[in-house]
């Protein structure tokens, strides 16, 4: 089996949302709203601000990198030995907003770290089932 060389990878999720960027921006940057769709957080829209996202399975350490109100927001995302950057981009359209999320910077060796002891086997199996379901 040949192993691919470590290289950065990214996840991109994009969606057309029938609401203006200003409204989405509030949901992305106000902690009481962030909590409703993502996780509990002490986020502040200030470059350099360190914050975390907390869930029952653990927490994610973050730091704000860039902010351009109603347009773009990025922060670091560190959890379980994984270092990555999450970037939100909001582009107005005739019907609302094109919302794009890119999480970048995964490397093969981080993937290995992520598989480590902190990630419970129960979770492992839930994921395995998803993988299997997708291949059927």
């Amino acid at each position, binding site marked *: 089996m040949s192993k691919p060389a470590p290289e950065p990878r990214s996840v991109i999720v994009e969606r057309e949302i029938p609401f203006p960027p200003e409204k989405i921006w*509030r949901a992305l940057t106000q902690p009481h709203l962030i909590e409703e769709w993502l996780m509990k957080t002490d986020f502040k829209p200030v470059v350099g601000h360190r914050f975390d996202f907390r869930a029952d399975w653990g927490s994610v350490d973050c730091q704000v990198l860039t902010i351009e109100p109603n347009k773009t927001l990025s922060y670091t995302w560190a959890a379980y030995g994984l270092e990555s950057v999450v970037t939100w981009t909001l582009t107005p359209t005739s019907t609302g907003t094109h919302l794009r999320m890119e999480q970048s910077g995964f490397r093969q060796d981080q993937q290995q770290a992520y598989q480590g002891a902190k990630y419970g*086997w129960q979770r492992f199996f839930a994921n395995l089932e998803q993988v*299997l379901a997708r291949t059927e």
Partner: protein
Amino acid sequence: MPNVHNVLFRTLADPTRRAIFERLCRDGEQTVKALTARAGVSQPAVSKHLGVLKLARLVRGRHEGRQTYYSAQLAALAPLIDWTSQMAGFWQGRFDKLEDLLRRMDQ
């Protein structure tokens, strides 16, 4: 898809075999007899499934006296874990929740 994936998927595609493997993962090493008691199939059938699991390196047998104790080798699953697709699934779910929230929010 690399060959190692094909072997793992093929091996785990059978529900009975997958159940045996999951039982070993959850409950630790066991004999064929103990596995048979809960597998709902005959002991030869369980032995056959264990043989296939061993070929895929998902299971290992340890001899002690007259007994063989089988255990799951979770490291064999590592090639299946695709970090990026896991996170993509996570964010897709969050996008759904975000849209729900936006519908409920005041303008």
